[in-house]
């Protein structure tokens, strides 16, 4: 991942998160994969055996790989072709309790910020709606970072709408792209500490992160927001998520016509 003023990293560890679910021991061919719009490009960057570790730094990669500020790492059981039409589907580093992940994040010369990353390709026809409580108000730059990866390599631009949930007022629209990492600067919208922004994109799914960089660059802060389904547990969470989205989208539409 890449965002202005920070480098990205991904620490790969060939070690399953638990000792019972996936006991893969085969040699894997680690590739980075990035979109060139009409196809996916791949490049092998390491061969890893069980127990190996490998760090990918954005500054060490050919800039073309991060042309969309996003490259995906994929552990393949054999070398991939240089050009592919969809993302590989074979599950190699895979588990469920918990999901097999690796640490990814950003860093500068003072600080590092991490999260546990893994991406299943997002559906190409889906929407994103999320509540964003990460804006901080003292000596900090606040950003929204949206990650999208779909099976299809096409890079499609969409609008993401920014609302204030307290007033249900459309504040702005910004651009986001598929198969990219998009950075949106938030301080210009002058949110208050009691405001809870809503980000809504009707035609693109995504994983949204709040990213904060202290003015002296010595502290970085990053966390992803939950999808609305995470507000409940058990039962038909997908149906509840549908209801939540519908409730808010109706309010957005009705306010737009006032």
């Amino acid at each position, binding site marked *: 991942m890449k965002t202005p003023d920070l480098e990205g990293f991904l620490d790969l560890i060939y070690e399953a998160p638990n000792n*019972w679910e996936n006991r893969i021991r085969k040699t894997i061919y680690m590739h980075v994969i990035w979109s060139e719009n009409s196809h996916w490009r791949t490049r092998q960057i390491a061969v890893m055996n069980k127990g190996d570790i490998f760090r990918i730094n954005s500054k060490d990669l050919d800039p073309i790989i991060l042309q969309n500020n996003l490259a995906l790492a994929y552990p393949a059981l054999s070398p991939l072709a240089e050009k592919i039409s969809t993302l590989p589907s074979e599950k190699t580093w895979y588990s469920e309790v918990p999901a097999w992940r690796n640490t990814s994040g950003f860093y500068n010369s003072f600080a590092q*910020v*991490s999260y546990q990353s893994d991406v299943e390709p997002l559906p190409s026809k889906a929407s994103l709606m999320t509540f964003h409580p990460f804006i901080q108000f003292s000596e900090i730059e606040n950003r929204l970072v949206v990650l999208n990866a779909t099976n299809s390599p096409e890079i499609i631009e969409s609008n993401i709408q920014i609302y204030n949930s307290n007033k249900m007022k459309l504040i702005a629209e910004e651009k986001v792209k598929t198969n990219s990492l998009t950075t949106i600067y938030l301080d210009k919208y002058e949110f208050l500490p009691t405001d809870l922004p809503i980000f809504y994109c009707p035609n693109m799914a995504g994983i949204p992160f709040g990213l*904060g960089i202290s003015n002296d660059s010595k502290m*970085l802060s990053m*966390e992803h927001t939950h999808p*609305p389904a995470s507000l*409940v547990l*058990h039962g038909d969470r997908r149906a*509840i998520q549908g209801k939540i989205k519908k409730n808010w989208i109706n309010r957005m539409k009705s306010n737009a016509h006032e």
Partner: protein
Amino acid sequence: MNRNTLVSIRRKIKFGINIPLKVFKKPSYSNSVTSDLFPIRNDTFWETEFEFLNIPGLISGETSKDHIAKIAFFNKKGLLLGFKNIEISGVSRKTLNINELLTGDFITASTFAVFHDNEAQGIDLDGSFLAERGYAGYKFRDSPVKGYVHGNLDAVSYSSGGVEKLGNYGPLKKTYSVQHLLTGPSDYEFIFTNPTSKKITIQPILELNSQAKKILKIKIDSLGIGTVKVKIKDGEIGNIKFKSFLYLGRPVVFRVTSDSFDVFHG
């Protein structure tokens, strides 16, 4: 028998042996609300905050109504110290300074859970339970900037004055490998809460520069909290695993360096 059927049978056997029950139980009462058990840092140099959101309002699409929730505080041995009511009026977000709430009986609190009142707004969850998996923020030294981490365990539920433990544990010890490369110079703290009804023991297994390093095991009471501390010197890299009866023994990880800190779920 085709390959998919074989894979499915093998998976069922593995899960049946290792996780015969769900990772977290379903609450016993239909009107229960659930919460993670969030670690409190009020030791030297640290502050804990929490982003209190009007969750029922977010579900119903209407956050202008007043909303009340209870914060339950527990000490490090898992003893419930009591509840404090918190209120949010007409807005969606209120940042709570948890340290400022730790007065009187609550001064020894080490974890907290947030239970929302989901009945006042009359929302129909259709068999689901309202969940607080929200966002704790931590400040270190004089930094004005928080590191955020979201809730990761559906640890406890609340109904009619009672707190229920939701975490399951298994008959076999399992190893959880933190999916993070330990790098120095830094001080790591791996913070565990115990959502089960049983006292658990966690054995850390640390490897630094390919050499095994011994670390003492920790014991955590039901609903209690425990920390494993590891110092990584300049030039050292390593990884850490934790062995326990927990189905999912995942810690919150703090990585403190000379200038900064990072917090995330392991």
